[in-house]
């Protein structure tokens, strides 16, 4: 597993994989800084005093954070698999004494890891804004909930996008599905917990308001993830390599 990961690290050199992982949360943070810088005096200061700093910050930022994460899931899954489509490396990799399911799961884990990194950076950005505008003691429990739920809620989508990007060589397909998924996710913001595309919005909504069913959300997310990864890996292992 470690060998596969270090091989992936070399492959990712000179690509947008890592920059994108950082640019996403950095961009969201920057937007947040802009919003707070421009509107602090005339509106946000007063709103934070009345409704609470957390409510105002989350109301302004979390939606955007979830959107950026959805886009990141789509793009990163695509990039991590496309590097081996484009180079026609599958026929070399599959002739090595490596488990094919292992290769797949490792790539899945890599994307999941990158999304975790992006989520951490996003939360760090929120902390930065919190501290920058002196909103008081850091709400660690809420930040932890945001981070954890946001990440876990993305895992089934990483599994779906990875499966698409792995099995369909033309990445236009997986990216189209991913972008369509974002639109669906927006529409399903108040939909049921068990739909993978509804989960990220549900997750940030719970982190924001404390309303929702986080336990069900996590349970559904983990169940879908296990199912999609298992199916994806099994199909990947059985695939004919051109």
């Amino acid at each position, binding site marked *: 597993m470690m060998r596969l990961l270090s091989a992936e690290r*070399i492959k990712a050199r*000179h690509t947008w994989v890592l920059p994108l992982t950082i640019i996403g949360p950095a961009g969201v943070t920057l937007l947040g800084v802009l919003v707070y810088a421009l509107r602090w005096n005339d509106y946000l200061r007063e709103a934070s005093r009345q409704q609470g700093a957390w409510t105002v910050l989350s109301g302004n930022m979390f939606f955007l954070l979830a959107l950026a994460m959805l886009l990141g899931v789509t793009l990163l899954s695509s990039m991590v698999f496309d590097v081996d489509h484009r*180079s026609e*490396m599958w026929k070399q990799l599959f002739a090595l004494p490596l488990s094919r399911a292992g290769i797949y799961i490792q790539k899945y884990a890599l994307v999941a890891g990158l999304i975790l990194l992006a989520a951490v950076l996003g939360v760090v950005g929120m902390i930065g804004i919190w501290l920058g505008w002196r909103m008081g003691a850091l709400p660690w429990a809420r930040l932890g909930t945001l981070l954890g739920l946001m990440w876990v809620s993305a895992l089934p989508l990483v599994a779906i996008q990875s499966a698409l990007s792995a099995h369909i060589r033309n990445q236009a397909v997986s990216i189209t599905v991913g972008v369509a998924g974002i639109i669906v996710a927006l529409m399903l913001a108040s939909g049921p917990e068990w739909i993978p595309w509804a989960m990220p919005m549900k997750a940030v909504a719970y982190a924001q308001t404390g309303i929702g069913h986080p336990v069900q959300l996590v349970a559904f997310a983990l169940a879908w993830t296990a199912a999609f990864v298992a199916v994806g890996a099994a199909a990947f292992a059985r695939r004919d390599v051109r």
Partner: protein
Amino acid sequence: MTAVVQTTALSRRYGTQWAVDSLDMQVREGEVYGFLGLNGAGKTTTIRMLMGLIRPTLGHIELLGHEVPRDRMKVMGAVGSLVESPSYYAHLSGWDNLKIMATLLDVPDERIREVLKVVDLTADAEKKAGQYSLGMRQRLGIASALLNRPRLLVLDEPTNGLDPAGIQEMRNLIVRLPREHGITVLVSSHLLSEIDQMATSVGVIHHGRMLFQGPIDELRHRSSASVSIKVDRPAEAQLSLAHAGIDAVPDGGALTLASVDPQAAAAAVRALVNDDIAVYRVEEHKPTLEDIFLALTSGVDAA
């Protein structure tokens, strides 16, 4: 000698078409085995099955005594391959490309330096593989295939698209490998002349079937040379030769003698001249491998 590659009734069907049909292939240790066939004969399909990239519809494969694909994890560490066009990460240097494979195979950097030297890419190791010429990419592919010190190296059309100098280099490399590194090489090509210059053994595949397999010399001996005599009146000439006790078969304006013995040819000419038949030309006809290959394949087409 042990078999490095052994297939039994290996077959693969695409739709209703058998791309590979009951192929029994045997590659022995230390050979350069030339896998010869026209484009679309089933060479690449066979090689993909050997490498475990696609599953056989029927039949068995053993590589180095291990059944593939069932035990591929046990054996693929000792097999190197270059299937069709070379694969490479264009955005990475030659070194990084090899480093990725070396990491996956758990091979030290020292070995990367060694294989770069073998394929003569040391000077270009830091250049991006996307900027390599086709010949360099091909050599990078071979370097990658050599990383794990394979006992079996499988090269699918390794000279495809190379210029004459590149072909020469590749050929020298392939001939050197068994001698200097004890590697058994299975190399496919649609060019007979190429196989002729590299291989010690040959397998001829056509429409998915093995038409011939054995030492390349045996293929040459299969069709023996003959002597043909061009004369003005072939029918009379044949009678004349029959009278002299010499077997000959008419072949257009010429007669073909069964024997290539110079004495027999001399006797035939003497008999013809005595019977006042004009002898235009006496020539020995030696079939090239090309002729043999065409004869082998056309026989199947007719049937």
